């Protein structure tokens, strides 16, 4: 009769293990530890007297709003300065940032729908949702359709692999300085992400309604358009609003490249070393991101409740 201890030892040695996971874990732990060490060494260098003097000058002098530096603090002066900054620099950039991200996410969402449907493996078979897709009946058509779906999914990954900032930088040189460079950069990147998430949604749909309508004679196109899309719609919207918030976040910085969003004013203040103005504009950027975050959360709560 095995003792309790033996039984525990047996279970322990029989537990599922994967050397791939262990190696990956060790590799990431080493990378993380090395990176920590590297940062700490760098931080020691950062504590030199020269750098510290810079930091204190920045905090005490540069960061203080300009009218308050000499005359001391007064609410009135601060209010006047904020109003002036808002009117002359922040308001226009903040609005442009919001509108750019709205257009970009709408384009991305529309482009993601075909990507999501074309990449879904459940639809990429000769006879979707019918029994004739068993292993022994996989012919040339099966292979071609699957390969196409794979390529579409890889395209989504490739679209999101290049950062928006780099895309905007490249597009600016080609299109010249207008809002389209920012819009297209955001739209391309987010279409990749939404396409990928959409594919997963379509693949995870409840197969029963799809199969039922397939048996009733709906073909692939009808299934995709009139069954899969409506069923996946709430989840698509969820992802859409989740990406909208990130879109606004990104749009604030794309201006640094010279597109008329908030970042353009940030960059200008930075170039002129007006750090008080720069910090104010960055705070405005934070505020509109918080606003977008709020809108996105309200929308997502509504979608969750209504579906």
């Amino acid at each position: 009769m095995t003792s309790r201890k033996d039984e525990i030892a047996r279970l322990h040695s029989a537990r599922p293990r994967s050397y791939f996971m262990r190696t990956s874990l060790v590799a990431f732990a080493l990378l993380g530890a090395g990176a920590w060490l590297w940062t700490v060494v760098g931080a020691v260098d950062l504590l030199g007297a020269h750098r510290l003097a810079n930091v204190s000058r920045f905090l005490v002098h540069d960061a203080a709003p300009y009218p308050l530096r000499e005359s001391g603090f007064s609410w009135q002066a601060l209010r006047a300065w904020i109003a002036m900054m808002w009117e002359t620099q922040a308001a226009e950039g903040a609005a442009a940032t919001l509108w750019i991200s709205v257009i970009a996410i709408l384009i991305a969402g529309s482009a993601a729908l075909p990507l999501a449907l074309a990449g879904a493996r459940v639809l990429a078979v000769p006879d979707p949702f019918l029994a004739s897709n068993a292993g022994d009946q996989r012919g040339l058509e099966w292979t071609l359709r699957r390969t196409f779906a794979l390529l579409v999914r890889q395209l989504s990954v490739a679209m999101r692999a290049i950062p928006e900032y780099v895309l905007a930088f490249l597009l600016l040189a080609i299109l010249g300085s207008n809002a389209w460079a920012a819009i297209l950069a955001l739209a391309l990147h987010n279409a990749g992400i939404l396409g990928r998430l959409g594919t997963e949604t379509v693949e995870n749909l409840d197969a029963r309604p799809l199969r039922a309508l397939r048996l009733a004679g709906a073909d692939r196109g009808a299934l995709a358009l009139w069954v899969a899309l409506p069923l996946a719609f709430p989840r698509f919207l969820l992802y859409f609003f989740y990406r909208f918030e990130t879109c606004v976040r990104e749009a604030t910085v794309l201006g640094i490249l010279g597109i008329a969003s908030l970042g353009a004013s940030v960059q200008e203040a930075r170039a002129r070393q007006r750090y008080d103005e720069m910090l104010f504009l960055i705070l405005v950027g934070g505020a509109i991101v918080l606003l977008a975050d709020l809108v996105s959360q309200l929308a997502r709560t509504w979608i969750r409740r209504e579906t």
Partner: protein
Amino acid sequence: MRERWTGVPGGRRTGVLAALALVGIVAWVQLGLAPSSLVPRPGGVQIARNFFAGALSPALDYQAGDVPAGAPPFLLRLLSALWSTILYAAAAVALALPAGLLLGFLASSSWWAVDPVCGSRRRARRSALAGTAQALLRVFIAALRSVHELLWAVVFLAAMGLSPVTGVLALAIPYSGTFAKVFSEMLDEAPTDSARALRGVGAAPATIFLWGNLPRALPDMAAYVFYRFECAIRASAVLGFFGFPTIGYFLRASFEDTQYREVWSYLYALLALVLLLEVWSSALRRRFVA
């Protein structure tokens, strides 16, 4: 899914789509967009042609003949840029992860719940103090997240000058906020079965959280760390535009020198890195979810 009649012709889906289209039209008008400005500017067509011509033949060596003396071989420079990109991203995630875990635990309802089995805010019986602390923490986390990493970088550059730590901190601060937010949501949405079981046998609240709630959320949390590492790689590549020695720095220089084949080499390197990470993480995910 229940469909209710809402008075919108065509149903609610149509209503939502119409509302989105309306907002789109407003945005279009506000920005004064015209399809005509989509046409490349005069020099742009030539740039585009040259740029895309480079896509099929990425550079393996410096494209221009006159390389300054002492410059490392091109591939070496590419590899070192790639390594810096990984290093900045890894350091940022390594800093942000502990901070995000701590903040995420403290911001989750299952941590504050007197009855930890109830994940939802409404049902959890909590003291007023705990509620206030949680709300304040959530505001703090939202504030960390709301400023973009490049804007943090701009602030740190102005205050401290160029240093690896500046770049790492700029990435790590918003990332810890994102980790905190997502982790707290995952902890609260994870199945509560094991927490219930532990509570049933009389375990202490801390035990229930650490051995009941946390392990159920762990696979999702691990997958999310991978995704964030991928985002950090992209963000770290962009940091190069601000003078850090990551891919963006060299990409920008090559582009401005019109060495488009070199630009493609950097783009492909970044693409390969992200694809590799994607394949690796999905292989890992298959193992720990199954």
